[in-house]
């Protein structure tokens, strides 16, 4: 040890100056955690196939709206012959297409868009749950986070933020782009007259974000592995949907049985947020939206309680 003491007496200094600034508060570490999680999501090439699919859906809506709007400006007042079916005004024909395809900047347009993108989001989240949080618990990456000056809440907030950013990048942000596009194509008055749609888009996005984020964090913390996570999500969002449909439509049970279908519940609330007019036949078999909201709120609360208990449990470190 004498030799070591002599060597230790002339230390080789670390190559950085002492830190004299103030450390940022632990809440500032939430974004870096989310950033790392998002990077790990975007690094998986397999997911890019699904992202491209989501992009195609967005482009379909975007250029659909654009082409129909452009075609309407090009159409004259002269009536055209439609084969043997008679003559019609092209503008009316385009208007008919817009109505049929729901590419008219109305509430149904955004609801459809959210529904299609929602499927993509569900698939990615089911696959990515273990990457985002499960593997940290399973393989022991958590000590790297928790040895830094932040709490478990900041860790979960960071992961939750990553999920929330991803959901909104896939749904709310492109929906807002469609909203902006329609206003620019048609009339600036659209932004003023249909401001409720903007709020509806944000509301629907918020419902999806809160519900899916909490559900993913809870299930990924609980199950950790990819396959059980996919099976659970498939059960929740696919088999329960089939079961609800069989019970209500097939066996004529109370429409309240549809409440076991969480995806239907989010859709119901989304319709309410956007102000989608009810379709008499299809909507007759639906429960009221406030019951769906109660169920989603209950599920979110349960997930939150589970996460609180899990955070307090010391076994979080394996």
């Amino acid at each position, binding site marked *: 040890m004498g030799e070591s003491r002599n*060597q*230790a007496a002339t230390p080789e200094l*670390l190559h950085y100056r002492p830190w004299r600034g103030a450390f940022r508060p632990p809440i500032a570490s939430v974004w870096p955690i989310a950033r790392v999680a998002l990077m790990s999501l975007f690094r998986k090439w397999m997911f890019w196939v699904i992202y491209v699919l989501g992009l195609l859906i967005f482009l379909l809506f975007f250029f659909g709206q654009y082409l129909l709007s452009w075609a309407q400006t090009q159409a004259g007042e002269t009536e055209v012959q439609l084969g043997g079916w008679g003559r019609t005004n092209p503008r009316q024909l385009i208007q008919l297409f817009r109505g049929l395809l729901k590419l008219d900047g109305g509430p149904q347009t955004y609801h459809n868009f959210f529904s299609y993108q929602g499927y993509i989001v569900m698939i990615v989240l089911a696959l990515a749950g273990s990457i985002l949080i499960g593997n940290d618990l399973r393989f022991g990456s958590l000590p790297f986070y928790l040895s830094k*000056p932040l709490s478990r809440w900041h860790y979960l907030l960071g992961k939750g933020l990553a999920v929330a950013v991803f959901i909104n990048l896939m749904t709310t942000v492109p929906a807002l782009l469609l909203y902006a596009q329609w206003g620019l194509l048609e009339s600036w008055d659209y932004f003023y007259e249909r401001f409720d749609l903007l709020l509806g888009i944000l509301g629907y996005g918020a419902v999806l974000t809160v519900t899916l984020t909490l559900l993913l964090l809870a299930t990924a913390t609980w199950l950790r592995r990819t396959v059980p996570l996919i099976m659970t999500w498939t059960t929740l969002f696919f088999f329960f949907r089939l079961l609800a449909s069989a019970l209500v439509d097939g066996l004529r049970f109370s429409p309240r049985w549809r409440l076991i279908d969480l995806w239907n519940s989010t859709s119901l609330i989304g319709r309410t947020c956007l102000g989608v007019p009810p379709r008499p036949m299809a909507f007759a078999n639906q429960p009221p939206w406030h019951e769906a909201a109660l169920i989603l709120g209950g599920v979110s609360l349960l997930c939150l309680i589970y996460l609180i208990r899990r955070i307090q449990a010391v076994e979080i470190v394996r």
Partner: protein
Amino acid sequence: MPDLLDSPDSGRGDRPLTAGLDLSFHETINPNHSLTVAAPTAAPLLLCQRVSKWYGPVIGVNQVTLELRSGITGLVGANGAGKSTLLRLITGHLRPDLGCIQVRGWDAWSTEARQHVGYCPETDAFYEEMSGRQFVESMARLCGYSRREARKRTEAVLERVGMAGRAERRLRGYSKGMRQRIKLAQALLHDPELLVLDEPLSGIDPVGRWEFIRLFRDLAALGKCLLISSHELEELEKLTDHIAIMAHGRIAAVGTVAQIRDRLDNHPLLIRIDVRGHSHAEHGNEREARRLAAALLKLRDVVGVELLDSPPDESVDPVLVRARNPQRFFQELTHLVLEEWYEIARLETLDDSTQAVLGYLLRGCSA
């Protein structure tokens, strides 16, 4: 059992205070000792007080009391002794069921305490798609640094652990040694006062080990406190002679290896003394060895003497002595040698290495 905290010669020169030796598993720190959380700078760097942790019905850490201020302390013990649990408690990953752990006066569970602690875990589960530089920089951001400062710190620590030139590669392609370096780099980022290292030398090549040992010594010389859990006892001995031995969830002993060895009364120290006889006498060596053995048996701390066969190519006769209270024995031996004028060719203690001490203690604990 006497307590090293009370003994005047217990502390090392560069270590103001260390926890006490506790072979009989009773407490060494006054439980009424009050702590001033409001004035963290006055508090010891690490203070564990009667810390216990259960995993269901199994106790992981049992009434552990430990206090560290500076220098390097090795944490050794058999598998399942509770070392990793203790490290996790100290780094705030686990919360004790009983007792308290404080770092600079802050509860180890708090974020304030973690600003003083750097942790290098045993597991190396990284995000394999990231490069070493990206990983360390991400960790730097979690420490509370701005992006610019985080980059600077990252480059500094990567250079310090010898990874600056290899940090662009993805983590999945790293060897075990490179992973250890990256783990150490992320622990050093915020220049912590207390470094908790779980098996830091595992999987590192000899050159790398020497570099790490030098780095640890440098850090200790800069006033840092290092708590190193390791099974590499030989390497640990090169680093420090101050160890904490854990057995069955308890701190069985804390102190320098010599101090702990001195207290092992049930295991007299084995000392080999090679005696060289007077050259003019026939069988001079053997006669001298017998004379020394007889004299040694008269010493109060000697419990046994054995005459060994001489080595074929050496003109010495070895005597094997078993003695209690080594400190007093060596004083009396010195007097004896000077008075009787024995020519001692070599004096060697055979079982005072960390390995031997650990073996005695663990056997004692399991008995």
